């Protein structure tokens, strides 16, 4: 086939922002796939070829999808369709499409060494594309001095019916008057657009306009980074953290708490990586202590773990959005939770330090009580513990502790990771009146719950249970320190709760002081 030189190319990309033909052919050859968002055949081609690009790249063939759409649209569509090659964009008047003489999309153009066009395939044409890829393999093989003419084997486009499907008109080939007549109106439903962009946890969000994000940032430097967010290691610039806070519905005065919580979950000791991708339902409990609770209207009273309070709900949600959007832990994607739990939408609890007979959590962890501190703990969903009948602290402590006996799994004893007990004020008052310290309650609960190993040998159990003598008593927790005690909830009602642990993650409890905004 007669080849001719490929026209120069200058299209938009991410890092670098402008991409030319030199860049794309640097590894040997390039497969330019011109596409557009609205074209179903383009989508079909991207979905079919997308998974192959990484392998082609390794062999020297760089595949690039060149969209006739804005870059953010291109990135979103490419992500959805599983395209693993380069993603590029050209604005109107679509100079690249014009230069390559495009009439329709998708059109695949193979550019070889010396930047010659070696072949072109229009529409979804499986046999044609297979031939183009074989041609690329032969070209790359011929380039290896040691193995002249030995083709490099490249993965072939999958056989998808129909084998031939016409594409759609290239925007470069549209008459401008016709294009204007069929274009969609600019003003669409903004909230629906957020879903369209994937900027959501499944609930409606507040659109992160530059104005709202700037207000959220206040005087903070948006380019400052808190580090990579696992599992996909997106960089948590403060601008992105602020975008997540806006999406979640935060007010700007919550932002210092969101930042502190984000810093805490990104501490490698917390192992957000493991929690983000696990099949277990792990959520991230955010506990707030100190004066900031009252300053921003965090609820530590009635319904402290439930709905109704903007600060609690949106701060927890902002941190989850950071993990799922910036960190890539979208449920069903890299988040592999079998069932998940509602706390994964967000779970932010303020401790009722005023109703507590004990030192607050942050003081226990070494902070001064006057400091405002965020503490994060990997947790399961809350389980209610009703007790309106206990008349002694011993009875109440026994009931609370045994409620957690089936935490994680019925016969998984002992638990090394923290179980969090949220003690309601009426229960807390009973311990206060009896003069029980936190340490005494914790040790009583630890001592109360144990069973002989022989009774724990059904189904999932621990190596410790398996290897122990049948009559050896196994405690539910590895130590009293695995029991975390907090106080929160309404004045009336004797309902406490336990949040079981996130196990197997080697996750530590991590705290960060809230820095003034």
């Amino acid at each position, binding site marked *: 086939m007669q080849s001719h030189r490929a026209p120069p190319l200058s299209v938009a990309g991410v890092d670098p922002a402008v991409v030319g033909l030199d860049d794309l052919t640097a590894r040997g050859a390039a497969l330019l796939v011109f596409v557009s968002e609205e074209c179903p055949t383009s989508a079909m081609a991207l979905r079919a070829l997308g998974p192959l690009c990484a392998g082609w790249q*390794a062999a020297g063939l760089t595949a690039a999808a060149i969209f006739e759409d804005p870059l*953010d649209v291109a*990135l979103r569509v490419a992500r959805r369709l599983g395209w693993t090659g380069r993603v590029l964009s050209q604005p109107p008047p679509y100079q690249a499409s014009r230069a390559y003489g495009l009439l329709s999309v998708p059109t695949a153009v193979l550019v070889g060494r010396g930047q010659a066009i070696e072949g072109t395939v229009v529409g979804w044409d499986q046999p044609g594309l297979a031939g183009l890829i074989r041609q690329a393999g032969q070209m790359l093989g011929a380039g290896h001095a040691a193995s002249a003419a030995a083709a490099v084997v490249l993965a072939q486009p999958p056989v998808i019916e129909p084998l031939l499907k016409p594409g759609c008109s290239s925007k470069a080939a549209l008459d401008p008057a016709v294009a204007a007549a069929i274009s969609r109106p600019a003003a669409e439903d903004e909230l629906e657009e957020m879903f369209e962009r994937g*900027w959501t946890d499944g609930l409606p969000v507040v659109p992160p306009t530059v104005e709202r994000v700037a207000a959220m940032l206040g005087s903070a430097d948006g380019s400052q980074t808190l580090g990579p967010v696992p599992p996909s290691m997106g*960089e948590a610039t403060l*601008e*992105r953290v602020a975008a997540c806070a806006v999406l979640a519905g935060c007010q700007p005065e919550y932002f210092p708490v969101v930042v502190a919580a984000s810093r805490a979950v990104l501490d490698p000791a917390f192992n957000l990586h493991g929690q983000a991708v696990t099949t277990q339902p792990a959520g991230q409990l955010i506990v707030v202590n100190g004066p900031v609770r009252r300053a921003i209207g965090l609820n530590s009273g009635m319904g402290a773990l439930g709905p109704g309070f903007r600060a609690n709900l949106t701060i927890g949600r902002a941190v989850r959005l950071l993990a799922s959007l910036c960190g890539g832990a979208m449920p069903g994607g890299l988040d592999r939770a079998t069932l998940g739990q509602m706390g994964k939408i967000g779970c932010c609890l303020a401790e009722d330090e005023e109703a507590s007979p004990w030192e607050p959590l942050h003081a226990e962890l070494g902070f001064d009580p006057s400091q405002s501190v965020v503490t994060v703990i990997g947790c399961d969903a809350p389980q209610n513990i009703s007790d309106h009948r206990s008349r002694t602290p011993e009875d109440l402590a026994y009931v609370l502790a045994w409620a957690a006996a089936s935490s994680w799994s019925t016969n998984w004893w002992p638990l090394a990771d923290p179980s969090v007990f949220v003690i309601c004020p009426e229960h807390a008052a009973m311990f206060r009146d009896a003069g029980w310290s936190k340490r005494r309650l914790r040790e009583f609960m630890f001592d109360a719950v144990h069973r002989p190993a022989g009774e724990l040998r059904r189904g999932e159990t621990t190596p410790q249970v398996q290897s122990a003598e049948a009559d050896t008593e196994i405690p539910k927790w590895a130590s009293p320190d695995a029991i975390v005690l907090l106080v929160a909830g309404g004045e009336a009602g004797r309902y406490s709760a336990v949040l079981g642990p996130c196990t197997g*993650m080697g996750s530590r409890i991590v705290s960060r002081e809230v820095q003034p905004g």
Partner: protein
Amino acid sequence: MTVQHGTGQYVSPFDDRVRPPEPLAPRPAAIGGRTVGLLDISKNRGAAFLDEIESDLEAAGARTIRWTKEIFSKPATLALIDEIAGRADLVVEALAD
């Protein structure tokens, strides 16, 4: 990055930088005489799986070296990755039970 919408702009919560895919290591034609690293990630019964793989590999003439990750839920340390890369030609990793 900021993205255009209507007459205004949004700030994207995504990190849209595209990372080039890591090239695959060359695949050997045969495993005889090769050193195969067997990585146990510390998941239940991963070692039992690797025992079987090890027998098959040794029968095919490969040498094996066993490694164990400290905990399955965290990425392997760079030191461990470097050590495996330095001593093994191939790696088999045992994942979940």
